[in-house]
């Protein structure tokens, strides 16, 4: 069969900048930092005592209390953001073939919060096993996709995707393939991550991955700044409804953008360090362009992975310059992690939404917290420092890279019938 075009018809988001897509986008375009001191646990003895947490988020405002209690937070945010996207896409359950609607969801870690608490209870007890019957189903990474399908009755392809911080992007790519090659008509995809707890903050601290700028959390996430010192943990979820173009047109759906293509590669180099020349990143952007049938000069904006780590930011920009050459100076580049922090397995979802919104509104969200240029970075590049910039975005690319050396990129473009 002829590969089918894939479009975006629904969006949902729970982010450190707001609990709707509109609030998230308002925060992004206004350069708001979502960072603050950690409220979810006492971090006073930790090297990093701040993160980008969700604000005023109470799952029982969205979910039945009994239902919410059976889910770890990453499943709660998955289900809630998916509900938003499904509502936004105006899907009429009586008019679609539910066998042809899937859910493919990314998460890096899964349900760590309840699991950690239960382990603590057991290992500090007298050895009597009193584990919850929901221990396993709160933990496993696939349960977000399963829960969304159960809630809405979607019986198409259903699984989770894990590639650390590239998870959501890989999920979006898998969803695209399923629709493009006719395995499903519509897929709810995206990713969620809620792991701001003691072992995760402590574990990232131990590997020296996190910023330790405890005297000024709001400026700690500063991608491409000379004094960047690591990433800032974020949490939340992003959801997208993807649909074949024909299916969307048939039901008269509003179309936000077209998902033009994507690709996935590996660095095959080190478990945490990026390839110094950004080899995997280079390949993934080239292959995404090829998959989309586009040229480098078709891209107006790159939402980079840009986590604010000393090595990662340099390697990614080397890769961008290798792929885009002289044209790179004409693009806008920004890292919205400067505002949201790093949403890990959900990053690719919320950052894809940022790209889609930039295409719709003609605004590129900034890389905030820029104070001092890094001489290792080419000053002719436009990093969209500190303030959003208005420009037409015909197409935008989103990069995400995960520990393990995973690279995934997707390209969204303005929908033109």
């Amino acid at each position, binding site marked *: 069969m002829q590969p089918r075009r894939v479009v975006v018809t629904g969006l949902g988001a729970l982010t450190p900048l707001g609990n709707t897509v509109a609030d998230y986008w308002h925060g992004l375009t206004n350069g708001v930092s979502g960072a603050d001191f950690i409220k979810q646990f006492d971090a006073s003895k930790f090297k990093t005592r701040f993160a980008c947490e969700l604000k005023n988020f109470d799952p029982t405002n969205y979910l*039945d*209390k*009994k239902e919410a*209690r059976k889910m770890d937070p990453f499943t709660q945010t998955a289900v809630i953001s998916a509900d938003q996207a499904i509502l936004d896409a105006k899907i009429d359950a009586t008019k679609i073939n539910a066998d042809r609607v899937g859910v493919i969801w990314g998460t890096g870690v899964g349900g760590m919060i309840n699991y950690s608490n239960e382990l603590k209870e057991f290992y500090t007890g007298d050895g*009597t096993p*009193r584990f*919850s*019957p*929901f221990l396993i189903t709160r933990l496993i990474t696939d349960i977000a996709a399963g829960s969304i399908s159960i809630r809405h009755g979607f019986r198409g392809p259903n699984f989770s995707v894990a590639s650390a911080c590239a998870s959501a992007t890989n999920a979006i790519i898998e969803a695209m393939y399923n629709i493009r090659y006719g395995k499903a008509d519509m897929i709810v995809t995206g990713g969620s991550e809620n792991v701001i707890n003691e072992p995760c903050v402590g574990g990232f601290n131990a590997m020296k991955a996190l910023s330790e700028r405890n005297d000024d959390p709001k400026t700690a996430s500063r991608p491409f700044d000379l004094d960047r010192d690591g990433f800032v943990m974020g949490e939340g979820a992003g959801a997208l409804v993807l649909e074949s173009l024909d299916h969307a047109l048939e039901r008269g759906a509003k179309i936000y953008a077209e998902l033009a293509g994507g690709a996935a590669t590996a660095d095959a180099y080190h478990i945490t360090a990026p390839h110094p020349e950004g080899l995997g990143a280079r390949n993934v952007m080239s292959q995404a362009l090829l998959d989309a049938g586009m040229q480098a000069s078709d891209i107006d904006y790159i939402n980079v992975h840009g986590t604010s780590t000393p090595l990662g930011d340099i390697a990614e920009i080397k890769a961008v310059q290798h792929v885009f050459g002289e044209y790179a100076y004409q693009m806008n580049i920004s890292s919205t992690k400067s505002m949201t922090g790093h949403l890990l397995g959900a990053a690719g979802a919320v950052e894809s939404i940022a790209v889609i919104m930039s295409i719709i509104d003609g605004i590129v969200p900034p890389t905030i917290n820029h104070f001092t240029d890094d001489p290792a970075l080419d000053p002719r590049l436009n990093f969209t420092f500190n303030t959003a910039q208005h420009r037409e975005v015909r197409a935008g690319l989103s990069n995400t890279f995960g520990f393990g050396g995973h690279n995934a990129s997707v390209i969204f473009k303005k929908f033109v019938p």
Partner: protein
Amino acid sequence: MSDIASRVKKIIIDKLGVDEAEVTPEASFTNDLGADSLDTVELIMEFEKEFNISIPDEQAETITTVGQAVVYLEEHVK
């Protein structure tokens, strides 16, 4: 209401997300209070934790209503 009965009631309200008025002695966990098999296992486990006892599986299977739970616990909690 005995102390045990009120503690049992509190656990049921919390875990099953039901209204206090629904938690009558005759109420069946599965038929009246919306519990599935996993919820029922969790309830038994919560009773064990709350009252620091161990309820053998074959006994647990006979506890299907609020009243049965209270009677069992009143007999077995020291």
